[in-house]
């Protein structure tokens, strides 16, 4: 699962930089922390921005709300979804 750890680390950096999170360092985000509506201050518009970032960087489209709600539960669920669906990560 070395690839998975690398992916999670990448995602932490992307979340902080794409969403311009203030006073939050990538390492502050726990793998199982609630992403939306939790302490990170991330809301639905941020998630839509992340959807675009993920499609651009990993080729994974998350284009409906129901799937999105499952996928964006936590960093772990997000990474798992990308890992399974990304043409760039699968071997």
């Amino acid at each position, binding site marked *: 699962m070395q690839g998975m750890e690398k992916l999670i680390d990448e995602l932490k950096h992307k979340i902080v930089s794409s*969403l*311009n*999170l*203030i*006073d939050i360092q990538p390492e502050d985000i726990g793998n199982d922390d609630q992403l939306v509506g939790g302490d990170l*201050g991330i809301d*639905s*518009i*941020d998630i*839509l*921005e992340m*959807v*675009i*970032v993920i*499609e*651009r960087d990993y080729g994974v489209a998350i*284009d*409906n*709300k129901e799937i*999105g709600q499952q996928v964006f539960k936590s960093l772990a669920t997000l990474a798992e979804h990308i890992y399974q669906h990304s043409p760039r990560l699968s071997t």
Partner: protein
Amino acid sequence: MIGNRVYISGMGIISPLGIGVLETKDAILKNKVGIRPISLFSVAKNKPLPVGEVPVVFEADPIPRTHALARIAAAQAMEGCLEPPDAVVLGITTGGMLTTEDLLRQKETTPAAFQYHSLTSVTEDIARRYHCTGPVVTVSTACSSSAVAITIALEMIRTGMAGRVLAGGADSLCRLTYYGFHSLQLIDPDGAHPLDKNRRGMSVAEGAAMLLLTADRPHHAVAEILGAGLSCDAYHPTAPEPEGKGALSAMQAALDDAGILYSDIDYINLHGTGTRDNDLAEARAINALFLNKMPIVSSIKGASGHPLAAAGAIEAVVSAIALSDQRVPGNVGCREPDPELNLNPVLQPTKTSLTTVLSNSFGFGGNNASLVMGTPRSSGQSAAAAGRAKPMKVLGSACITGAGDTHKTMEMIYAGKPCSGIISLEEISKNLAAAGVRRLKRLPRLVLSLATSAHENSQRADTPSSVFLGTGWGALSETYDFLSRLYETDEQFPSPIDFVGSVHNSPAGQIAMKFQATGPNITTTGGDYSFEQSMMTASLLSGKTDAPFLLIGADESHHKLSCLLDRSVSAGEILSDGGGALYLSPEDKTGGLYINLNHYQMATDIPGVIPSLIQSLGGAERIRERYGVLLAGIPGAFRKQSAAQLSEFLTSTNFQKPVIDYRKLTGEFASASAVAAVLAINFLKQGTIPGWLLKGENLPLHGKGALIIGLGSFITAMEVIWQ
């Protein structure tokens, strides 16, 4: 005060449903769908999404598509009317954007190419074509824009400010809205199915509609505008408040304004966009308001798509057609009504008896507007009390300039130094919580910071209920960044955050959320006269309650766009920006410092504008007695024209007091007059004007007021006085 009644004397419409009232009627009768895959512009490698496109090509026209659509609707509404309207009030959100998108992609650098970019250029074009010299107002409150425009026109007529107003809205499709709404996942890939159980979103559309509203009852009166209600959710930048509290409050306000009960409504033309959240919030509001006496309801957006700023006016025309034909349109696109909505929409056009209808328009920023329309009543005065256009008491004020905040700006001014230039984003944001503004770029931060400072300056425990913002150019950073990323990624990865921030009313929506200001939230735009336009809107609408409100004028400078769009800003010049905010009260009992808009008129090619200004101010003698200083707004692009106007004013009035050419101090930006208003307030508070003007001691004002006039393509006048 009981106001005039307001009749619809003429109507014009162009939408995906057809051109003109007859084609629109026919389309409604046949349940026609005007939504199909986009063909207006290519969409790179993407699959074309369904949109409501007007099936007309305007190849020969040098003007942008929004302007062309507006001209067609205006020509229909004005047909047979030989006299000019006293005012033109339009709701616009995209303006010349479709053309600007091409120009930016081609890296066009000639400012003249962008002359029709601004939203106000649509309204001014229509005003010129029909020889209107009176107020010209452009409302930009996203999808409620033209319903708000009709609300302003209604008040203009009720108060007697105007007898005849051309009101409506126009928007053409463009990449910004097409990709923007898609990036928010609000587009149904199969076309909009409002109120359907399986609805997945809206279809972006375009169109224009205009109403000629008059105080005089026409021979063949179609309908009356009986009332209007505005509110703001103050909840979220894009999503509606889930329980529909804002929608409910706008509908209730409209019923109250019309002096009727919910049980008097026979039909509701729903906002009904087809997004899951909008339709649910609207349905909850309607269920809460209408209880066991549910009127007939339907949304036309499954047929027309959502023509954004034009939606309110298009649906006002559709509602007027329903009243005259005694037939409600079908809720096209709904196959199986969503039981959760509990609305039971009519799916086919249906003959029924109608005397009073409600039309809803809700937009981004939680901007809600509801209109009540009815078959013409017996003549007489309107049941509703007219708003009061009168001086507003200044409770607090603040400005931001290149020098910094109000304190730093006044220091520079009294030292005889300019306050032009720009300050850093960090300095603008010093009174804002960093986490709360992390997504906001320059304009919304300027506006939030100004609002916060003006409110603090008042030292009052109450908070604003309403917000009125004037901005010449809106959020340039977000607009530029959205389009840049769209082009850089071959139209694949637009930023939803930038789209949300790019709409003109996004900064005012931020203020509403901060202060929980759930009253009217109105953004207007009118180039160098945007702040004055906003003040006119505020004086018409704020007087309906006694609650204090915020009035703000602000613009951001942008390294690429400012010199292309604003003709007063030359390439290579040092940029300036900022603005002013006033915390005001419509109550007039206690005395103190007051601000008032005395005059607002188009000037280019119109004779007699300076005598008309002097008359509005009560004549030369009154002007000499009343004011101790004149602040003159002379936009760089109109320096020659303005100099002649100023000279005529000074000669005609024999005004001998100091004259401050304030843009020499503030630098060139559209809402510099908002800074001038704050300077004037501070001069009066200190009781002096800066001595350097006369190369001597600070000059006492002896209790006299300050007159702020705007010159150039419009002539405006505001006064700050002790009362």
